[in-house]
């Protein structure tokens, strides 16, 4: 196990060729015990070792702009995803959340902004009236040209369904004030960072939030974690080999620092990647899409090796948001 972890670590840190060398030299590394200490107590979540899919290494999030989504298929609850309320009744999430049996499901999802999703009957849900996936998205064929994004339109604003939680993480109160029921004109669109701004701001860490199940099919909790930026534009061969599309996506948590300790996971799909400005305002930069390609010990269902996120600060996505009814300007919502 240690050898495989070392190989994967070398792949992530040094690229494919170095990976080949590491594969040959794996036993030497093992003998000289050069492995980072945390590898000896791995928190790698695999489908075998841990049924939970919650954000790894995170803490409770108090930000109710982040919502949980239950996707329905053939009249049944068929999976959980996460999303960001980008406008009072519009939720931005991932398109793949709606893929069932190789097709986009037809039933509108249910949405909640409660901290805990106990189960569908117990939670307070708001039914979506409609949703749309990014143009060109297909569940069957590869979606190289399309973005893994979708918008959900809610019948009602989910304000006031639950008292604010006292969070482990400190979330500035200003961001909560903007969510008061009287505020129905807000839009996060003006806050979206385009890639140019992201590049110049040079963030080394980005926040990710979502509602992964803590136990399989039992409870989902809104968690939040800060991840290292592994590749902001996926220009490199290594990022490309990990399945990331250049300038359309970015990779978080795939570096040595986060490896096995911090990551998004299954139910966090569609959740936001964001930063906060000095005033605590949520600045969206991306959407949780999928894990990086995994090999060896990181089989299907494993989390902890890093994730791929869809950029929303690119012109095509911004045009789509505006054309889909997301307001370009935000009304003040402080009162």
């Amino acid at each position: 196990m240690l050898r495989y972890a070392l190989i994967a670590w070398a792949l992530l840190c040094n690229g494919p060729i170095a990976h080949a060398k590491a594969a040959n030299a794996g036993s030497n590394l093992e003998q000289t015990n050069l492995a980072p200490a945390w590898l000896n107590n791995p928190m790698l979540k695999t489908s075998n070792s841990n049924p939970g899919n919650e954000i790894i290494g995170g803490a409770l999030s108090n930000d109710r702009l982040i919502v949980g989504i239950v996707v329905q298929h053939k009249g049944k609850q068929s999976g959980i995803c996460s999303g960001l309320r980008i406008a009072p009744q519009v939720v931005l999430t991932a398109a793949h959340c709606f893929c069932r049996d190789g097709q986009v499901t037809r039933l509108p999802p249910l949405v909640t902004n409660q901290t805990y999703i106990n189960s569908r009957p117990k939670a307070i849900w708001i039914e979506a009236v409609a949703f749309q996936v990014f143009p060109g998205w297909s569940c069957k064929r590869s979606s190289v040209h399309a973005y893994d994004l979708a918008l959900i339109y809610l019948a009602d604003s989910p304000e006031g369904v639950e008292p604010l939680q006292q969070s482990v993480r400190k979330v500035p109160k200003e961001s909560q004030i903007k969510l008061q029921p009287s505020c129905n004109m807000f839009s996060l669109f003006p806050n979206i960072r385009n890639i140019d701004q992201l590049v110049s701001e040079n963030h080394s860490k980005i926040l990710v939030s979502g509602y992964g199940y803590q136990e399989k099919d039992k409870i989902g909790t809104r968690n939040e974690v800060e991840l290292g930026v592994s590749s902001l534009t996926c220009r490199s061969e290594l990022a490309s080999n990990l399945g990331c599309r250049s300038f359309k996506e970015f990779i978080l948590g795939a570096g040595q620092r986060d490896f096995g300790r911090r990551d998004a996971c299954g139910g966090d799909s569609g959740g936001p990647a964001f930063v906060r400005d000095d005033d605590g305002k949520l600045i969206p930069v991306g959407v949780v899409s999928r894990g990086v390609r995994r090999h060896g010990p990181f089989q299907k269902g494993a989390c902890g090796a890093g994730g791929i996120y869809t950029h929303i600060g690119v012109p095509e996505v911004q045009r789509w948001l505006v054309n889909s009814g997301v307001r370009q300007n935000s009304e003040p919502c402080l009162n």
Partner: protein
Amino acid sequence: MKKFLCIAWFIALTGCNVINSYRVTGDDAKEPTQNASGAYFLPKHLVVATIDSTGIVVESKAVQDRTTLLQVGLKLSGLSHDTITVAYKDGLLSKVTSIADDQTGAVLTELAQAAGRFRTNINPKDDKEIPFVIEFDPFDQDESEMANNIIGNKFPGTCVEVELVPGSWSRGCGPRSLESLLVDLPDPEELRDTIKSVEPGIYYKRSLDHRVHIVFKRKSVGLHTLKFANIAPVFRIDVNRTTFVKRKTEIDFEDGELTSVMVDKPSEVLGFAKLPVTLANAYISGVVDAFAQRKSVQEARASLMNQQAATLKAEQSLIEAQIAAANNANSPQERSAALASISRSTNFQNGGANSGSANRITYRSLQNLKDCQRVLEKTEAQCIETFRILNTNGQD
């Protein structure tokens, strides 16, 4: 005045490319001054699975990739004794030779080609049984899925999948797939390297190693490496008069894939140019069980990476040989033409005479520039500025 114009015209001819390729249809119209010498396709590979009740044999077979038909055109010179022949086999390039008077020394760049055939089950076949044979393009997802459905109907629990890019496998093995992606598969069409605009030269592909996973009667019985040219980058050799025709040149292809380049030139560059490459044999034998399979994946991957590194080294050796030829040029004009041929000789690496990494523009960086322009809707200058900031910040 007319005399000078004629001389200039002859000089221009002697320095230009002697063997060109043109698309038969499309925007790259054949120039009227060219002598057509036949057409060829670039290669792609099919999976050929031969199955009977005792086992399965999988191999790859080169066929014509009919998406692009290229026409060879010869620009012959009145001032030079060009002897050029182009040979074809099965619609693919087989040999290009050009011979001129200057024949001193011999430099051979050997590019080895790994054998790509294996057996996954060595049980002797029943003579009475007629094996079932099926061919399919694993890079065509629909075709791959359909072929595996057919295989599965005849031999339940049997399938063949090919790793298209690391971690992503062709369709058809369902739950027995080694697919590690949660959601997305790359579109092979997007991966396929196509010729955007046809420039002078001879085009070829060098196959890349792809892992092939074989499931027979619900058991993984093999994880091997085979060569496929389907999504391999398209390379180009610039066969121009100054660098090649003054010497003897032989370019050999096998299945449309470059296998050797022989250029007669002064012996002092022998050390540079003779860089034989031995490609490792990635054959991994035996039936792998669930635990050992993961080990085999890693070993196959290591082997794959080594082979690809060797292949790239082979391409590099060709470039180095051309650089050496440029350094031994007899005149500034010859050197200039030689450098031009190096910088255009492949679309993978555009290093010019300076092989230092500082000035090296890789295929990846050109692709990045295109992606940046397309996705971010920026100009080239704006993208370069973005790259500069990213590099300054140490960001990928």
